[in-house]
């Protein structure tokens, strides 16, 4: 069984507007031009997994109507939910996708207040769930008072229960996270190209970082980077590099979630290292090909998996 953690979920409103102009109110001509969907790394991964016929339980915090909407949407998709309900309101994120001008503009709310009680309720719930899952994905934006120490705490609880942790932390909390030794680490270096104060501009720099990290810990088995139009997957012995065509700019938003889902799927199916890497690569490429938030053509992914050839670098 798989669990995903979304500490600060969002209700994503995406408006598709050709030519969004300043100082002008845009009246949409029909409701197909706005999409409402649940967002947040853990939730995205749960939904992507459900498209690949894999069940998971979504953990995190939800509050008020936006929270209920998210929960309802997940339940409709056959995802099990076990959220901590809070008084505050789950945040909304608004995106305007302007295909004419090839721009994406977005506003992300901060997120609700999490009280001490909410925090301890979540820890209790998380511990309980770790007794009945094999893997847990923890990712995405943190919110006060849930800081990087909290992240690390979750990883340790999972490790204590022999649960594999797959982590996609946002920038800044990497030091704590690395110390906690997750099974798989995927640092977000899209905007800020440093991890732990180390600048990672190129693949060799990434590989050096990985070697350094592996020398200091034993539990981490995979470290992944999305850098310079390439996806780099580093096991303890080998680095695999995939070239990704960034044809559809809008889809970049969800590429990491797709990669993460691929990992979880492959581990759940007990793939070998090579099969896992090929599957993740294939899923990433198929994902970029589709114009949707999620990729569901498993057959195509499997076909690509069998023919894909990543660049292989020994560590």
């Amino acid at each position, binding site marked *: 069984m798989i669990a995903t953690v979304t500490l600060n979920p969002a209700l994503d409103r995406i408006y598709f507007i050709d030519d969004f102009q300043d100082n002008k109110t845009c009246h949409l001509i029909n409701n197909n031009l706005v999409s409402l969907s649940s967002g947040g790394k853990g939730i995205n991964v749960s939904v992507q997994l459900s498209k690949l016929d894999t069940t998971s339980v979504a953990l995190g915090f939800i509050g008020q109507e936006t929270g209920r909407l998210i929960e309802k949407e997940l339940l409709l998709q056959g995802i099990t939910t076990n959220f901590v309900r809070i008084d505050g309101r789950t945040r909304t994120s608004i995106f305007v996708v302007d295909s004419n001008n090839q721009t994406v503009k977005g506003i992300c709310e901060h997120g609700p207040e999490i009280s001490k009680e909410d925090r301890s309720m979540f820890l*209790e719930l998380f*511990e309980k769930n770790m007794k009945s899952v094999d893997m847990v994905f923890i990712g995405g934006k943190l919110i006060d008072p849930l800081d990087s120490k909290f992240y690390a705490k979750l990883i340790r609880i999972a490790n204590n229960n022999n649960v594999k942790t797959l982590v996609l932390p946002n920038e800044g909390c990497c030091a704590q996270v690395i110390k906690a030794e997750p099974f798989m680490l995927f640092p977000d270096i899209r905007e800020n190209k440093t991890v732990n104060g180390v600048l990672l501009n190129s693949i060799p720099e990434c590989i050096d970082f990985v070697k350094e990290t592996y020398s200091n810990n034993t539990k981490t088995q995979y470290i992944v980077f999305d850098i310079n139009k390439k996806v780099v997957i580093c096991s303890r012995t080998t680095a695999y590099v995939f070239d990704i065509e960034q044809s559809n700019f809008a889809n970049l938003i969800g590429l990491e979630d797709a990669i993460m889902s691929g990992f979880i799927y492959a581990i759940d199916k007990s793939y070998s290292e090579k099969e896992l890497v090929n599957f993740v690569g294939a899923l990433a490429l198929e994902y970029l090909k589709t114009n949707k938030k999620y990729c569901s053509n498993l057959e195509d992914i499997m076909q690509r998996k069998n023919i894909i050839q990543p660049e292989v670098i020994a560590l």
Partner: protein
Amino acid sequence: MIVKDVYLRDVTSVSLNSNIKSVIKLFNLTRYYALPITNVDNEYIGCIDISDIIDSCVPKYMKDLSSSAFLPDVDMFYNRLNNVKDMLVKDLIKDDYPTLREEDSVSYAADLLEKFNRRTLPVLDGKKLLGILTRLEIISVLIKKESI
């Protein structure tokens, strides 16, 4: 149609040592009528129903009065609720809460809801909680079937 087609996969639960105030808060936020109870190993133990809380706040003699309408309003119910808020779930639950499995038919589930006069039933796989089935979900089957 079987339970698997209609139940809610929400596994929100409380523990035996949760206090009643927090449970009432959760009832308020979820709008469910019963909440499953799980232990530290995430195994299903039983359920706490809203009626268990209400029952503990209505004095026994009220049930034997042919009508309690004659009593003046002295916030009796609220005062009793206040006395009960620090009690724990394990102090209030009753045994033998009926349960369902995914393979059970919806007819059986409906019958169980009526026989035991419940509004929510937990769906289990052995000791593992899979979700809940409410009366609303059962009757909404009509709308779901029609929309297919």
